[in-house]
C-alpha cells in the first residue's frame, strides 16, 4: 500500500477530489445516507443518550486507570496462553510482527482490517522485507490492488464507483470486462480470497475491544474475514492500540450496542468474535502499541480522543469530509477524529487538519463515546497557530479577522467596503485567489447591512410598548 500523500495539504488535495463534481455529489449523498441510517438505528432505542453517556463514563475510568487495566490484561492474556508484546512506536510494532513471521519461516500472510497497521505502515515495511500481505476486507483488498490507502476507516473504498472496482478486478482477477454488478464482483473476490485464507499460515487481525478482566479480545466484522483468517492460520497476531482496553466483559453490552449502530445503522456487526485462548496447536500473539498514545494521554485537552471506538460516525456526518474525501486528509485515520489524532503524532505535518472543519459540532453530537471533537479541533488550531505551524496567509488573515471583530468601527467600514466590492467588482472576489469561490457562486450582496437596516427601521417603526 502506498503511503498517504504527505507533501500536499488538505485544501490542495480536496481540490483534486473536487475536480469530479458528479462523484463528489455521490460521495456526499452516500455518506449522508449512512448517517441517516445511523440516526434511524439510534432513535429506535429510547436509552440511546444514556448509553452514550455510560460508554463515555466507562472510557473516562479506563483512561484514568489505563496502566492498571493493561497490567491486568497482560497477566490474564498470558494465563490464557497468549504471547504478549509491547511496541513503543510504529517501528517496534512492525519489527515485532516481522520477527514473529521469521521465527515460523512464514513469508505470506492474510490481514483483516486494522487501522493501527495502516497507522504504522506495516504492509509497506513487510513488503520491503519480502513478506507478502493480502488484505482480506473487500474494500481494503480493492484499494490494495489499486495501490491506494483506504479513504474511510469503515468503508475503505467509498471513494470508488463500481466501474472502478470492475476495472481493477478485470486487471488483477481477470473478471469479465465491463461487468459492474456488485454481486458478481463480490463473488469474484470471495473466490480469490478463499484461496488465500486456505493457504496462508499466518493471519493478522485488529482488535476492537480488549477485556482487562479476562485477557480476551473482541474483533467485529461483517464479512467474516477476521475469523476465516484466524481460525485457519497456525499463527494469529492481533494488534491493538493500548486504548482499546475496557474493564469487564459485561461492558461489551454497552459498546457493541453502540458500535455498529453508529457506524452503519446495523443493530450489531454480523460477527462479534471473542478470542480468549489459542486453539490447540495454534499460537496467538498480541502486540500492544503506544506510538504517541501516552503523549496524547498527557495532553489534558486532547486525551479524550483516546476514547474513540473507530465507528466513523463523525466522518459520515462531517460536511467537510463528505465533500473532500478521505485521501485529502493524508493520514491513516481521516475525518474529524483523525484531525485531532494526527497532530499529536506530528504537529507540523498535520498542521492543516484541524482547519479542515467548519466547527459545526455535528461530529461531537454523533460520537457514541461523546468525544468533544469540535472543541479539540478548535484547541488544536490555537496551539498550531501559537507554535507557528499555520500557514503564513492563514495566520495573517486570522490576525486581521481578530482585529476587525474587536474594533466595531473597522467592522462596519469593512462590511460596507465588502458589499460595495461584491456588487461593483465581483471579479475581484470571484477569482482563483479566493478559495471560497471554488465550486461556489457568491451570493447577491445585500444593499445594506443588518446594522443599517435596523437603524432605519427602528426610526420609522418605534416599538409599540
Amino acid at each position, binding site marked *: 500500500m502506498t503511503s498517504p500523500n504527505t507533501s500536499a495539504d488538505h485544501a490542495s488535495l480536496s481540490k483534486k477530489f473536487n475536480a469530479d463534481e458528479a462523484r463528489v455529489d455521490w460521495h456526499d449523498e*452516500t455518506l449522508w445516507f449512512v448517517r441517516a441510517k445511523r440516526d434511524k438505528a439510534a432513535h429506535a*432505542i*429510547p*436509552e440511546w443518550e*444514556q448509553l452514550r453517556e*455510560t460508554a463515555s463514563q*466507562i472510557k*473516562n*475510568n479506563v*483512561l*484514568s*486507570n*489505563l*496502566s492498571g487495566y493493561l497490567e491486568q490484561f497482560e497477566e490474564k492474556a498470558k494465563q490464557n496462553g497468549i504471547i*504478549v*508484546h*509491547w511496541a513503543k512506536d510504529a517501528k*517496534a510494532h512492525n519489527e515485532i510482527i516481522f520477527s514473529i513471521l521469521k521465527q515460523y519461516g512464514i513469508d505470506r500472510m492474510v490481514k483483516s482490517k486494522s487501522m493501527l497497521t495502516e497507522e504504522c505502515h506495516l504492509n509497506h515495511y513487510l513488503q520491503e522485507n519480502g513478506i507478502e500481505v493480502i488484505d*482480506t*476486507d*473487500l*474494500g481494503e483488498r*480493492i484499494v490494495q490492488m489499486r495501490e491506494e490507502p483506504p479513504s474511510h476507516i469503515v*468503508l475503505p*473504498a*467509498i471513494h*470508488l464507483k*463500481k466501474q472502478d472496482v470492475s476495472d481493477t478486478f478485470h486487471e488483477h482477477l481477470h473478471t469479465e470486462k465491463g461487468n459492474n454488478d456488485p454481486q458478481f464482483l*463480490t*463473488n469474484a473476490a*470471495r473466490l480469490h480470497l478463499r484461496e488465500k485464507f486456505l493457504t496462508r499460515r499466518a493471519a493478522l487481525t485488529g482488535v476492537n475491544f480488549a477485556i482487562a478482566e479476562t485477557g480476551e479480545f473482541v474483533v467485529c466484522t*461483517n*464479512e467474516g*474475514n477476521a*475469523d*476465516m483468517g484466524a*481460525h485457519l492460520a497456525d499463527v494469529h497476531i492481533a494488534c491493538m492500540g*493500548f486504548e482499546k482496553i475496557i474493564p469487564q*466483559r*459485561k461492558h461489551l*453490552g*454497552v459498546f*457493541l*450496542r453502540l458500535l455498529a449502530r453508529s457506524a452503519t445503522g446495523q*443493530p*450489531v456487526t*454480523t*460477527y*462479534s*468474535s*471473542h478470542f*480468549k*485462548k489459542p*486453539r*490447540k496447536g495454534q499460537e496467538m500473539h498480541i502486540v*500492544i502499541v*503506544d506510538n504517541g498514545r*501516552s*503523549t496524547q*494521554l498527557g495532553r489534558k485537552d486532547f486525551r479524550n480522543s483516546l476514547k474513540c471506538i473507530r465507528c466513523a460516525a463523525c466522518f459520515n456526518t462531517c460536511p467537510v469530509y463528505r465533500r473532500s474525501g478521505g485521501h485529502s486528509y493524508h493520514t491513516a485515520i481521516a475525518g474529524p477524529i483523525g484531525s485531532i489524532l494526527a497532530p499529536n503524532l506530528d504537529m507540523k505535518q498535520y498542521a492543516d487538519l484541524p482547519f479542515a472543519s467548519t466547527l459545526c459540532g455535528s461530529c461531537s453530537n454523533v460520537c457514541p463515546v461523546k468525544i468533544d471533537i469540535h472543541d479539540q479541533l478548535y484547541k488544536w488550531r490555537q496551539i498550531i497557530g501559537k507554535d507557528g505551524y499555520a500557514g503564513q496567509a492563514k495566520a495573517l488573515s486570522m490576525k486581521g479577522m481578530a482585529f476587525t471583530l474587536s474594533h466595531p468601527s473597522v467592522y462596519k467600514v469593512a462590511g460596507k467596503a465588502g458589499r460595495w466590492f461584491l456588487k461593483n467588482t465581483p471579479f475581484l472576489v470571484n477569482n482563483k485567489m479566493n478559495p471560497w469561490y471554488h465550486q461556489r457562486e457568491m451570493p447577491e450582496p445585500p444593499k445594506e447591512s443588518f446594522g443599517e437596516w435596523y437603524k432605519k427601521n427602528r426610526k420609522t417603526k418605534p416599538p409599540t410598548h
Partner: protein
Amino acid sequence: MDVTNKSTGLQSPPLGDGGYILQAIKANQPALIDLIEVPEFAPYFDDVVAKYIDVLRGIGGVVYLVSNDEEIIEKIKQDFPDAKRIVSFIPALASIAEQNKQEVDPHDYENVDVFIMQSSLAVAENSAVWITDNELPVRVLPFIAQSLIAVINKQDIVATMHDAYDKIADIDYGFATFIAGPSKTADIEQSLVLGAHGPKTMTVFVKQ
C-alpha cells in the same frame, strides 16, 4: 536501555518496552475516576420472539418456528436439496449430518455446504446467536460453511445485549462469537451483497 533517575543519578533495572510504556502511561494518566455501574435498561419491546424474528428477517436471515427435530430435518432437506456435505454436532440431526468429533485440520472443512449448530443464547434486539468453542469443536465451521443454520430454544432468547452479557459474564471459553445473519459487505458502492467470506445464508430454527 536503562533509565537514570534525575535526582539520584542511580540507574533503575532495565525495562522491556512494556515497562517503558506503562511508566509513560502512569506519568500521564489523569487522577482515578471511579468505574460506574451500567444502568438497568428496561427492554424497549415486549415480545422478544417477535422482535427476534423481525430483526433477523430485516438483515437477510431466514427463520422458522418449529416444535420438534423432525420438522427441522424436513425443512433442511427442503431448503438445501443440493447440499453434499452437511456437518453438525447436534445428536438429533445424525440422520442428515456428519458428526465427526475427531480432531481434524480445520482446512478439511473447506467444502462444507451446511453447518448446523445448537446455540444456547440469542438476542432479540439484533438477532445474534451466541456460540462458544465448548460446543464448537472446530472454530472455523460457522464461518467456512456456505450456509449456516442455528437451532435455538425460544426461552433462550433475551431482549438486549445487556441481558446476554448478564448470562455469559463469567463463563469460560477459548473462543466465542455472536453471529447475526449471513456474512455481508457493502464495500462496492454501498450495494449490499450477502455472502462476503462467510456463509451466504443464515437460517435459524426457533424451537417452541
